[in-house]
């Protein structure tokens, strides 16, 4: 500091040479002076300093968001996780190998046998195209990387980009401080990390970025009224539509927001420009995605946006008429007529559209969002997915930690400084929190809003506290400098007396805030490392000596299928494993995670819950060659097919009433031991899971056939298979594959002993060889 201050000193004093020695003679006095001086002189650069700090914090956050998601790569390997990502990976592979047009027109005969699936028309291509573009770009820049690495790292990369968007969004809504805090919070928030760790190559990884980007650009458009931002937000929306079905949230939230602005009297030309251009262009762009098609004009879920669009036109028209008509009475009358006609026309159009079937009604998924109990009663296939369950409080706490109570505080600040932007963020926060409560997986959508609003709370609080702390600082400083004069006004004295208390309080609160934030950081890291970084395809456990035991059974089985079954073999399994079998096993499956055909899934469910001979008929009709079941009885792996079995029964029974859930239960209780229902003990799933399990001792001190996943001794130990045979069982029995035997020949004969192809092998040898062979074959006959 001294060094920096001195040259300035010198330059100021250059006019009078005498004073320099004077200054030199008094180093003590000068040191008093320097803080004052240097602060002033350095202030020249505060703007740049702030920029530097901001940019470097953003860079660090960017890197942090990326590396905190790499736990799974370091613990396991660079691999694709879970179920859906395997489908995405497979399609990306196809896209990079065959090109976009082939991909767009891809009819996949490897899934949903015998129906097949039109991949190009039934997926959101955003993720695959993004990964392929990154891949092609890197290839173009001469980085010879594998597409798998691109896919694995796509989600962390987009998480990093999301932090940037969060920063700009926070800056737009509040100030750059809030933006920075929001970026830091969202970088490590577990709610988001759960879907964006390396390897979790799923639509959500890209979609959250697109969602936040669309919102940010729209808010920016509303704030500025600029066409450019509105168009940008339309393109952001297009990207979102191409990436994830969650775009419906955007197309409903934005109209709702516009409606709220209209009601609260915040209608402006800026809003008009922003919404109209975003809606019209966004709709046209979205129609380019084949999976979405004309839904924007034909589906009930998208009608709110269109209604608000027309409402805005009416509003604008009225505004214009009001401008022309000076007479308020006349205008009132006009207003009444116009509004009535508009509403009437709208209602009639909607009614006619719905009645004629042009506008499709809301889908089950949409209903189940509005009414959490809907799926349970009507669509078991949605209810059977664990991530579609209502959220428990603990998972809110787990995913948000301190954000959970910073969120209301942030709402308070937002309401205190109400603007178009804060209204938006408040609405986004409240609606998404509701949806997060309905479905576990939608915590993801709520996370950005919660982070932004909490960031506002943190930023505003810390700013206020530091202002208090710093104001006192300044006073003491000036007081110190003027201390020699030892004069204090009485009014000032009173002011000073109140301030130490305030200042200490502020400092204490600041420390508390930092403590909380650091707790948040440790919690997030812990959650990421413990809960969200497991690939779920490779299971790890601690051995008796604390060493890590890896269960790689899934890949063992899939690779076995890939290498040791005929290339056109059809594999029947519960739909959970469909994507993995096609991607890793490279074999045709009957049903997979796409779940587009409920009847087909129900057929598989029915086969699994029937007796073996009935199931054999079903399997023959579906050309099934292999049946794959997941069984955790040996390892104690609880998410196996026996535990999912009731859902198979329910889904199967939903379509085929021959399957009745009570047949598998005893007094409403689901059990597999001796007391289990007879149908349960003899259905295909039970047989395939427990075939020859009764001979195996799994745990010391327990009888053979002790199921470790359910903690009981199984009820049927003597299982004979008639139409199937065990083809492969993995080393920990987690995956068991059975071969469906071909039907018996009607007149089966004993196979005749043949000499095999050796006769042709020795053409030269002539009769001598023939002699030798006879010699040998008699021996073989004896042996």
């Amino acid at each position: 500091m001294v060094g920096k201050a001195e040259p300035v000193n010198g330059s100021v004093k250059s006019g009078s040479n005498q004073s320099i020695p004077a200054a030199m003679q008094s180093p003590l006095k000068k040191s008093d002076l320097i803080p004052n001086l240097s602060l002033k002189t350095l202030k020249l650069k505060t703007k740049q300093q702030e920029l530097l700090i901001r940019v470097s914090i953003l860079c660090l956050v960017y890197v942090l968001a990326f590396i905190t998601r790499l736990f799974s790569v370091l613990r396991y390997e660079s691999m694709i996780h879970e179920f859906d990502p395997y489908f995405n990976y497979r399609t990306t592979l196809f896209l990079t190998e065959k090109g976009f047009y082939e991909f767009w027109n891809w009819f996949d005969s490897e899934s949903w046998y015998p129906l097949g699936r039109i991949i190009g028309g039934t997926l959101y291509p955003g993720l695959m195209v993004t990964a392929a573009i990154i891949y092609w770009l890197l290839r173009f820049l001469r980085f010879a990387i594998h597409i798998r690495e691109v896919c694995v790292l796509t989600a962390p990369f987009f998480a990093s980009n999301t932090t940037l968007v969060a920063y700009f969004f926070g800056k737009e809504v509040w100030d750059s401080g809030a933006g920075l805090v929001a970026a830091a919070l969202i970088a490590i928030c577990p709610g988001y990390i759960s879907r964006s760790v390396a390897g979790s190559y799923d639509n959500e990884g890209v979609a959250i970025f697109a969602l936040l980007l669309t919102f940010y650009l729209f808010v920016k458009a509303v704030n500025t009224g600029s066409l450019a931002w509105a168009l940008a937000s339309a393109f952001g929306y297009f990207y979102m539509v191409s990436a994830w079905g969650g775009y419906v949230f955007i197309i409903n939230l934005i109209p709702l927001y516009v409606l709220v602005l209209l009601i609260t009297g915040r209608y402006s030309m800026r809003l008009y420009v922003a919404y109209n251009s975003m809606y019209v262009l966004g709709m046209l762009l979205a129609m380019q995605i084949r999976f979405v098609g004309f839904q924007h004009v034909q589906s009930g879920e998208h009608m709110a946006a269109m209604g608000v669009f027309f409402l805005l036109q009416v509003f604008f028209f009225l505004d214009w008429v009001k401008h022309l008509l000076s007479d308020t009475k006349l205008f009132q009358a006009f207003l009444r007529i116009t509004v009535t006609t508009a509403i009437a026309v709208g209602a009639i159009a909607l009614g006619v559209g719905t009645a004629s079937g042009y506008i499709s009604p809301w889908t089950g998924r949409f209903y189940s969002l509005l009414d959490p109990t809907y799926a349970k009663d009507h669509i078991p296939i949605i209810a059977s997915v664990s991530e579609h369950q209502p959220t428990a409080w603990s998972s809110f706490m787990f995913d948000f930690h301190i954000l959970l109570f910073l969120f209301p505080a942030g709402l308070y600040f937002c309401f205190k400084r109400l603007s178009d932007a804060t209204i938006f963020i408040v609405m986004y926060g409240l609606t998404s929190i509701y949806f997060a409560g309905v479905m576990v997986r939608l915590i993801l959508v709520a996370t950005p809003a919660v982070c932004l609003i909490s960031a506002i709370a943190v930023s505003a609080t810390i700013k206020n506290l530091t202002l208090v702390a710093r104001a006192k600082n300044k006073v003491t400083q000036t007081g110190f400098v003027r201390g020699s004069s030892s004069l204090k006004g009485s009014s000032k004295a009173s002011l000073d007396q109140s301030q130490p208390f305030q200042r200490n309080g502020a400092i204490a609160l600041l420390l508390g805030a930092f403590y909380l934030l650091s707790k948040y950081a440790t919690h997030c890291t812990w959650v990421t490392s413990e809960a969200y970084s497991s690939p779920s395809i490779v299971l790890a456990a601690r051995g008796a000596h604390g060493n890590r035991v890896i269960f790689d059974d899934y890949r063992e089985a899939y690779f076995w299928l890939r290498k040791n079954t005929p290339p056109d073999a059809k594999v029947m399994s519960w739909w959970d494993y469909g994507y993995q079998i096609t991607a890793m096993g490279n074999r045709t499956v009957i049903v997979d995670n796409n779940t587009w055909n409920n009847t087909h899934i129900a057929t598989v469910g029915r086969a699994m819950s029937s007796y073996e001979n009935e199931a054999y008929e079903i399997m023959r009709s579906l050309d099934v060659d292999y049946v794959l079941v997941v069984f955790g009885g040996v390892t104690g792996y609880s998410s196996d097919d026996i535990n999912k079995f009731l859902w198979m029964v329910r889904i199967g029974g939903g379509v085929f009433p021959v399957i009745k859930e009570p047949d598998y239960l005893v007094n409403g209780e689901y059990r597999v031991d001796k007391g289990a229902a007879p149908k349960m003990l003899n259905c295909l799933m039970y047989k395939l899971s427990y075939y020859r399990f009764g001979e195996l001792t799994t745990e010391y001190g327990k009888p053979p056939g002790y199921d470790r996943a359910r903690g009981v001794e199984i009820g049927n130990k003597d299982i004979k298979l008639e139409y199937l045979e065990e083809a492969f069982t993995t080393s920990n029995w987690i995956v068991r594959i059975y071969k469906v035997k071909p039907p018996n020949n009607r007149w089966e004969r004993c196979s005749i002993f043949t000499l095999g192809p050796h006769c042709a092998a020795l053409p030269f040898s002539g009769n001598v060889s023939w002699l030798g062979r006879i010699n040998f074959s008699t021996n073989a006959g004896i042996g």
Partner: protein
Amino acid sequence: MGFRFDLLLFVITLLSVPVLSDLFLSKIDRRIDLTTQAVGITATLKVENAGSDLVSEVLLAFPDDQAKHLAYLTATNNEGKGKAKSSSVSFPVDVVRPKGMPPSLTFYSVSLPKGLGKGDSLTLDVLAVFAHALQPFPERISQADIQLVVFYETAHYLSPYAVKVQSLSVKLPDARIESFSKIENTKIHGSEIKYGPYENLPPFSYSPIAVHFEANQPFAIAQQLIREIEISHWGNVQVTEHYNLVHEGAQSKGEFSRLDYQARPHVRGASAIRHLVAKLPPRAHSIYYRDEIGNISTSKLWGDPKKTELVIEPRYPMFGGWRTAFTIGYGLPLQDFLFHLEGKRCLNISFGSPINELVVDTLIVKVVLPEGSTDISVSAPFPVKQGQETKFSHLDVVGRPVIVLEKTNVVPEHNQHFQVYYKFSSLSMFREPLMLISGFFFLFVACIIYMHADLSISKSSPSYLAKLQWDEVQAGVQQVRNIFDRCLTAHDKLEASLRDLSRTGDVQACKASWKAVDNLLKDLSKDLKPLLVSLQSSPQAAQILPKVEELIAKERELQEKLMVKHSTVVDSYEKKLSGREIENRVALQQQKITALRQEVDDLLDFIDEI
């Protein structure tokens, strides 16, 4: 029919005899090793020339169906009577089609460089290795069955020459022998079967024998193996091997029961391939073992200074007919394998697979040389098919030259070193780092240009003009701010001079500093005027202007007060008043100054916010 064949053979033999009657084999010892799937037949031939001409080649005959499995054949001169292998010289061996020979025989000729004169004799060691020579019988077994294989050979050495004395011994693995052909002079000795000696047999004698025995060694066949050897002159040779493996023993039929396999692995699954052992060169590092769908975690590694041993388990135990595919990769230190030779670089590395007892149907070795290598040549110890292609790896522009060597029927005996010679300038090593550096450099340059360039399309649009004006205003305000900072510094200096005065009592110095500060302040106020005018003219500055004006007024007031205080104090010193009195006189002024200073600071902060 057999009789007719025999007759035909006899006729052919008679026809061909005159051509080759010069040579005869006085003694033959054959040893057949059936303990591994690659069957090795070692024959020690004592060749004698009975004719008068100099003979320069010796013919070796194999039946066609054996010849197509023949993977490796060498003939060495066994000069020393003992086991002095070092003195042995290997002779070139070529396929020949001599005229008048039986059609279903394949002949190999061993060229003798010196030739064999009349009455001379020579001892030859012939090693022939056959792949796929053991055939499983029965061909399909269940999990509980043991695997049996059958091997066909002739008890009499098949040769175009007459043989005086010969014997044959067959070495079998230590296990059950199901059956073997019993002809005259057959003895069994533990796991070794001896045929012979047989004496004075005519050319082309043939006496087929079959051995049927239990063999549980793995029949691991790599249908295709691609070894990619990539050289980096930064110090690494990266070897990547893609295996496509199949168990070619007896096919498994019926159920595979994990329970049986786990309970009694050596009975139920005796013939399964449980693991493979690869002997890697010493100091191999960064070893990995994976397949198309990811890492395989069942592998173990031991290393000592002589070798690195890698034990890999396939994902599943491989029963007969089961397949798998995997990749192993490892890095090797460059200096162990790359040498300088007469201005060229020479890579000297082993050809075959490091996995023990593995037979490879098609082996493709690709040597990826660094980009910019020229004058490439290959020398291999046995004939291979050569090709060339280009590979694009990280930061390659024209691609790296790749030498492709292809060979079918590869057995462990092929694990010999081959050499690739090429020229490569060391400077080319730095091309890729430089590319990266320049890439980043241009990126930053582009950023700098972007930050400084004005990229707006319409230079006359109102928003653009407004932005320009706003930038101007901001610059103006910043300048004003600078001037004020200097003013305040000047004020502080004034205060400092007063304090000096109180300490030293040097009135002159104090006056001088006062003068200097006064001049400075006047200069600054002069500087301020044009700035203020420009701010007043700009419409964008309307917001800030009142504040700036207020600031100027306050500052002026502060300045005046300070000046007054200063002169008062100096006056007092000149009048030699006491400290307390001076303090009393300036107290009121001081208070005002403090308040003003506070206000000025606040205003400055406010301007800073903008």
